[in-house]
């Protein structure tokens, strides 16, 4: 155990957007009373401004790992460092943004008000909130729909609003939990392309959870493959293919095939 922890490079990057996961283990209480281990000694360093996919079958603890990185779940063992600061002392949570699997738009708010929601934690003046939300909506191509209510939007548009809400706080880290899994293939591919453009523009670190191998190959610089029961890292695969990537190209398809055999 101690040996494994020591093997991790001690000097993690303190650059804005860098994440280090050190020896993280997590147990959940079950109904029977015996704790169930969901994560076993996870060690992972994520470089600033990189795109990392956490890939695995359901039940391998990949969402739990993401929740631990986001700071909403605390591990029993190990620690998380963001920008070189341990999670316990880290206070800039506003620079870490989380996008859920569902769009989670508040039905009683218009598009722009939904985006502004992410800025309503602090005391930002209304006019600044509004202009920032407008910019974020422009970024995802929804400036014409600022006053629409969620029920008036299509699935793809709702997903864009959720993305704009994650971007409006100008995060240096964007965490995504199977964000586009509910969209049709065509819309999903379009969202992938836009996401990468925005990532280039805003210089963000993106960590996303997926069970879709093609999605991992198309988006990520590195793919962390996880194994279930208890959740642990099976392999970390670097993807050096040039961008933009197309899931149907032979090189991409071959890589996807190799990854699939790892899960």
């Amino acid at each position, binding site marked *: 155990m101690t040996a494994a922890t020591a093997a991790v490079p001690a000097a993690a990057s303190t650059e804005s957007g860098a994440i280090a996961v050190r020896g993280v283990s997590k147990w959940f209480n079950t109904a029977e009373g015996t704790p169930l281990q969901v994560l076993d000694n996870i060690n992972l360093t994520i470089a600033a401004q990189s795109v990392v996919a956490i890939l695995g079958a359901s039940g391998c603890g990949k969402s739990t790992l993401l929740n631990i990185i*986001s700071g*909403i779940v605390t591990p029993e063992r190990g620690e998380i460092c963001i920008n070189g600061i341990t999670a316990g002392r880290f206070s800039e*949570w*506003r620079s870490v943004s*989380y996008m*859920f699997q*569902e769009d*989670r738009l*508040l*039905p*009683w*708010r*218009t598009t722009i008000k939904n985006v502004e*929601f*992410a800025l*309503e*934690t602090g005391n930002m003046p209304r006019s600044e909130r509004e202009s920032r939300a407008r910019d974020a909506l422009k970024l995802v*191509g929804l400036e*014409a*729909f600022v*006053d*629409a*209510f*969620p*029920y*008036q*939007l*299509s699935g*793809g*548009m709702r997903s864009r609003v959720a993305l704009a809400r994650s971007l409006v706080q100008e995060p240096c880290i964007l965490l995504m939990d199977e964000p586009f899994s509910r969209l049709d293939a065509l819309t999903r591919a379009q969202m992938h392309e836009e996401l990468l453009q925005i990532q280039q523009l805003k210089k963000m670190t993106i960590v996303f959870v997926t069970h879709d191998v093609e999605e991992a190959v198309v988006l990520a610089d590195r793919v962390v493959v996880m194994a279930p029961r208890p959740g642990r890292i099976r392999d970390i695969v670097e993807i050096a293919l040039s961008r933009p990537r197309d899931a149907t190209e032979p090189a991409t398809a071959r890589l996807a095939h190799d990854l699939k055999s790892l899960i």
Partner: protein
Amino acid sequence: MPEVLESQIHARAPARGWRFNLVLQRLGLVAVILLVWWLLSLRVPHYVLPGPARVWDALTLISANGNLWQDLGITLGRVGTGFILATLVGLPLGIIFGANKRLGEFFEPIIPVMNTVSSAIWATFAIIWFGVSNATTVFVVFMTAMPLIITNVWQGTRTVNADFIELAHVLRMPARRVMMKIYLPTILPYFFSGARLAFGFGWRVSLVAETLGSSSGVGYRLRQAADLIQTDQVFAWTLTLVVMMAILEMGILRPLENYLFRWKKEAEGS
């Protein structure tokens, strides 16, 4: 990319022709009722069923001597006071019972009991405790409206979406703001339907309370007119109440509801 047309977003108000048609229908209904009323009144003595003309005369009489506006104002004031008190107590209690499961379970049996107690019983108690005064009517309205508001708000808290709470949690939103920005908007439609019901009930029971324990107000006037067999005045008061409820409903409540809940998808596709 625009998958929804602009026009679709803004085309929410019903077409003008359709609205005009509805007004005509309503006017027709009023005409039919007036006609049937008039025909019936021709066959019975006026102290049993006065005709429309007689009631109109009574209406102009009570309106001219000032009773109409004064008593209507008094009753409305009492209903309003009872209703506002019921909201001030019922809304927070509903939220507390909904948010705290243990408290909710403990107090749950009280609500149906309160709902089954007749307003005549509350009125009797009120006369014993408060005598013939404003407080009697206010108390009866309060006791009738409050359980209705609690029940509805309570139900509303059960529908708060845990996903939205988690979203606020990830954003590190303080608990007070989560209350204001997620709980309150979720509860609002439930509160509104509860308040509407409570106001309607309050209005009806206020008359019962006023006939029993008051020396002013519409209920008192109704009893007075009935005692003196001034059936035309009974009708005149009743008509006033109906008109006032219609104005409240169509002039204030319905438009307010349409505005507040414009984010809801219409049930039938237009």
